[in-house]
């Protein structure tokens, strides 16, 4: 499922690049038309100006797209939590997949530092959950360190049961709340 996000990200960068030429040409024409007839006689200079403008415009769009892709990758990094079973800080296979992707991203963005928040569902009691939240965050950190991330890039904080994302009183809500969340510092 989650691999699709990366394909979408890739497409976001590649597809606009492929469309680059066409969009470029169209823009050039548009720019030409927008100028007055008298000025069209200026010939080559105008054409060059238009081409230059179009090139700059295309670069701007490309930069925007790249920025958007970076933002999307960054958002994916912070939006995607890993989840845990009740009273457990063990990393389930899906959590490990997500962590591997996060490690890939962190390696690509060298030097970034993050904070991992450990959370629990409302069941259980407050002090124990504060400890369990820390173990969840530390488990995620240990996994990332094993994949080559420098431990100094990762800090952890436990919120125990203090910050649920879903206030529901059912297993679906509790499952969402038993999580580690990732923030880029």
């Amino acid at each position: 499922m989650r691999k699709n996000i990366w394909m979408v990200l890739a497409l976001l960068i590649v597809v606009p690049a492929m469309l680059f030429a066409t969009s470029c040409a169209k823009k050039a024409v548009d720019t030409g038309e927008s100028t007055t007839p008298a000025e069209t006689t200026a010939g080559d200079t105008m054409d060059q100006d238009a081409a230059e403008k179009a090139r700059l415009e295309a670069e701007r769009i490309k930069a925007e797209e790249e920025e958007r892709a970076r933002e999307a990758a960054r958002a994916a990094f912070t939006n995607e939590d890993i989840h845990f079973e009740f009273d457990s800080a063990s990393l389930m296979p899906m959590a490990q997949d997500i962590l591997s992707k996060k490690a890939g991203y962190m390696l690509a963005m060298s030097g970034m530092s993050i904070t991992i928040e450990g959370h629990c569902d409302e069941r259980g009691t407050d002090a124990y959950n504060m400890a369990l939240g820390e173990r969840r965050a530390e488990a995620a950190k240990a996994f990332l360190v094993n994949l080559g991330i420098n431990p100094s890039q990762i800090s952890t904080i436990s919120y125990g049961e203090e910050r649920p994302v879903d206030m529901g009183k059912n297993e679906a809500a509790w499952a969402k709340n038993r999580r580690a969340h990732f923030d880029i510092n």
Partner: protein
Amino acid sequence: MLKRVWIRNMMRRFFIGGGLLVGLLIVAPHMVNAEIKYFDLTNPFLRKIPMAVPVFQSLGRNPTEMGQVTPYSDELMAMLEFSGYFKMLDRGSYLHDAQTSGITQNSINFQNWTTVGAELLITGGLRMEGEQLVSELRLFDTFKSKLLIGKRYRGRIEDRREVAKRFCSEVLLVLTGQPGFFDSQLAFVSNGSGHKEIYTCEFDGKNVRQVTKKRSITSFPAWSSTGRHLAYTSFDRGPVQIIIKDLKTMGESRVRYKGVQIAPAWVPNRFQLTATLSRGGDQEIYLLTGKGKMIKRLTNSRGIDVDASWSPDGKKIAFVSKRSGRPQIYIKAIETGRVQRLTFEGNYNTQPCWSPKGNLIAYSSMAQGEINIFVMDIERNDPIQLTFNQGDNEAPSWSPDGSLIAFSTTREGKSRIYVMTAYGTDQRRLMTMPGEQFHPRWSPNIPQ
């Protein structure tokens, strides 16, 4: 086995307070050392003693006194009723006009009281002397026609509640051998301001005061044995930190170690406390100075160790450990290092709280998705469930005399602070406040 306990009637103690509030023994009864049977101490709440507290009398017939008689007697009655030991007789059920009767032993017709079922009677007489309110308060055993306590207090009208508390302490002392909990407070957490902050109130939920204004998540209040220091945790400067507050100077010290800092608990009669620290790794229980400096580590096992509670003699801690795979309660003797598992039923037992007498441990246990409060005798390991089928019931804390337990419950939907007797009876809400309330911690008796 129902064992009747004879309680030594102790009349030797009386208060001489500082300042304006002075209590004097009016009459020294001749019955010192007499043995009186009042409560079955195996469960004193099973049969409540019927008590009458008629409206106090104005001795000087002056309007200030008249204005005090009803609220004063109501307040005193409510305080004693809070203990759970007494069944207060409805004033409408009295067969005579108590105002026409006297307030002293010789002027009371005790038959008027025994016929309506009152076994104990409290009378009060008020007299203004200048700016001072003089209160004469007496406790009688109606069947024996005997004065058990007679006290005269002098103080400002504003100190009325303090006077009532002192007399209530005397009443419990003579009837149970212990002065009760009337000089205690509770610290608790409330999010009524939009943030979890620490608050305190008196034993009966009155006079709520906000102690912290951290605008963060502030929780886990813990009283020192003198009641002077309050420790708690806060996220006000990033990751959770333990703060130790001197309630006299309002000065704060912070525990400065890496990793989580959870669940502070004071060592009885010492300026030291334990807390769970992870120091970036495994959560273990550490002993710290009252200023938050390291003394030593007390537990050492892989997995969570948390929620320490000291035995009243300061020789052992009860704590929660995941060393067996699930959170269970263990006891560790500090000197020998011997660790014993206490709970075996259920697979989520946390929040141990050692009783002031040392023989019981209250704790919370999760089963079938509900958390309930249990009490276990540490000798017999015989868990007794105190709350049933009413939401989650957590964080038990004993009153200083061990007769009551405060806890938080979601039985009304929102989390509230409730109080019950040590036997699970008389469960009632302590106060009404905006937001939700959590994690009550009962203080020792703090002399005013």
